[in-house]
């Protein structure tokens, strides 16, 4: 394993110390338990947004704390959900009296831990709503399983709901908006190489020199299908067809297209993917009116990419365009 780290057990702590040193004017880092809040938290009268999840997906979530996006993020160990005490403390730290929205990616661990935290926060008199994001079409959705994973739509939901909260909308409104974003967004990812969990020290899975994994999860969970590597245009079709087939996006729609690096794939390749996505959608009558291209929800050093499409309307577009000022996403401020 080759990584720029110190002790394997200190990866998350060291990272948080880096974030604290790098962005002292924007965020506050709490070390016991681990959580990150806006430097100006709590913002009185504003619905507060709290998210969290395993580390290893940077900039998500810690990099999205700041004006116009999250109020707090709870980082777990690498690829491991954080614990209820972190979420509870973060929730208390950012609660500004207007309620707190928990944005939870749909993984059993995240869901269970956030559930416990929401119960505890409720007992302390803080109104909490939870929205579970489950946009990954690589996984068959079903009432009898853990359901779909939460992936790229999380970033979009955090941005859009963050903007709505800044506008002073109520907890119910922001939570409904979050459900709307989740309902209108679909994602799928793929990997060219495996990531290496620092504590494991070796690749999570083995891929042959000429193989790729389609439908990969952001924790290196195996995907739908292992196949021979293909061109960017073919990969785009393999990812985008299931997204379009899944429902919410139809010909004639405007979408936000989010082309994401899994961590090890550089921007030059993302732009090629974007080009092919643009063509594919054009051929299918779907118009890209907003985009986001870069490493925003990563899987350590995994090479690969994911595509997220969010159906846009005027409201979502306006909230997407609203100013945001976080270490990981910034415009208009």
């Amino acid at each position, binding site marked *: 394993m080759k990584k720029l780290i110190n002790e394997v057990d200190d990866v998350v702590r060291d990272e948080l110390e880096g974030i604290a040193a790098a962005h002292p004017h924007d965020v506050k880092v709490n070390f016991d*338990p681990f959580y990150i809040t806006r430097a100006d938290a709590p913002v009185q009268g504003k619905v507060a947004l709290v998210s969290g999840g*395993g580390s290893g997906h940077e900039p998500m979530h810690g990099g999205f704390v700041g004006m116009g996006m999250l109020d707090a993020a709870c980082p*777990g*160990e*690498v*690829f*491991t*959900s*954080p*614990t*209820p*005490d972190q979420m509870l403390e973060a929730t208390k730290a950012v609660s500004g009296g207007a309620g707190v929205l928990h944005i939870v990616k749909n*993984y*059993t*661990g995240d869901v*269970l*831990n956030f*559930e*416990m935290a929401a119960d505890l926060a409720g007992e302390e008199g803080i109104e909490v709503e939870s929205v579970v994001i489950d946009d990954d079409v*690589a*996984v*068959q959705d*079903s009432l*009898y*399983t*853990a359901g779909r*994973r939460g992936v790229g739509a999380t970033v979009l939901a955090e941005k859009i709901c963050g903007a709505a909260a800044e506008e002073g909308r109520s907890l119910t409104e922001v939570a409904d908006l979050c459900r709307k974003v989740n309902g209108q967004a679909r994602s799928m990812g793929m990997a060219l190489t495996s990531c290496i*969990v620092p*504590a*494991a020290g070796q690749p*999570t*899975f083995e891929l042959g020199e000429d193989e790729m994994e389609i439908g990969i*999860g952001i*924790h*290196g*969970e*195996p995907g739908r299908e292992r196949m021979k590597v293909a061109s960017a245009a073919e990969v785009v079709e393999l990812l985008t067809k299931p997204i379009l087939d899944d429902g919410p996006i139809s010909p004639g729609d405007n979408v936000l297209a989010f082309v994401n690096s899994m961590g090890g794939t550089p921007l030059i390749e993302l732009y090629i993917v974007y080009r092919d996505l643009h063509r594919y959608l054009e051929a299918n009558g779907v118009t890209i009116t907003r985009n986001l291209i870069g490493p925003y929800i990563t899987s350590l050093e995994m090479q690969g990419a994911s595509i997220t499409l969010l159906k846009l309307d005027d409201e979502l577009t306006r909230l997407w365009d609203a100013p945001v000022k976080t270490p990981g996403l910034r415009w208009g401020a």
Partner: protein
Amino acid sequence: MESIGLDEVLAWIRQIAARIEEQRGYLTELDSAIGDADHGINMNRGFKAVLEKLESSPPTDIAGALRTVAMTLIGKVGGASGPLYGTMFIEMSKAVGDDDRIDAARFAELLRAGIDGVIARGKAEEGDKTMIDALEAAYRAISESVASGADLSEAVEAAVEGAKEGMEATIPMVARKGRASYLGERSAGHQDPGATSSHLILAAASETWR
């Protein structure tokens, strides 16, 4: 052995920690096949913290010992297994109440309470390819054993046997809960890591209470 008290419960917990530490790589390997390669790491982090906690604030009764395990797992493990095992030990702690000795029948009751907690939290059923498969099979075995008049050691040994069968039964299953469910059919052919750690937890009891 007919029954156990606080010391034996503490010895059990220490043995769990030792066995998890030893099997950490194996559990993680199982999790890398159908999950995210961290189950051994998670459990080991949790039980190491449990040991520290038992040192720094020694519990004074069985309920307290089980509660320490529960709260530490909840606070340190994260992932799916943290709240699930945390809930299991909380429910066992609640069920044991003020008792200062546990016999075979009582242990079976505690196990039932723990399993019900896991089910309430995780909504898994037998056959979903989770820890529930090992735990339910263990409970069936211990119930039968208790009914046939076994003492604690014998009953726990039966539970371990049951857990082992339940654990191995997860191999052909297609996962419906947890991270392995994302794999659909591809999850078949692999043993569930959580079922494996459940077996380990019961095996640790049997190894301690002879």
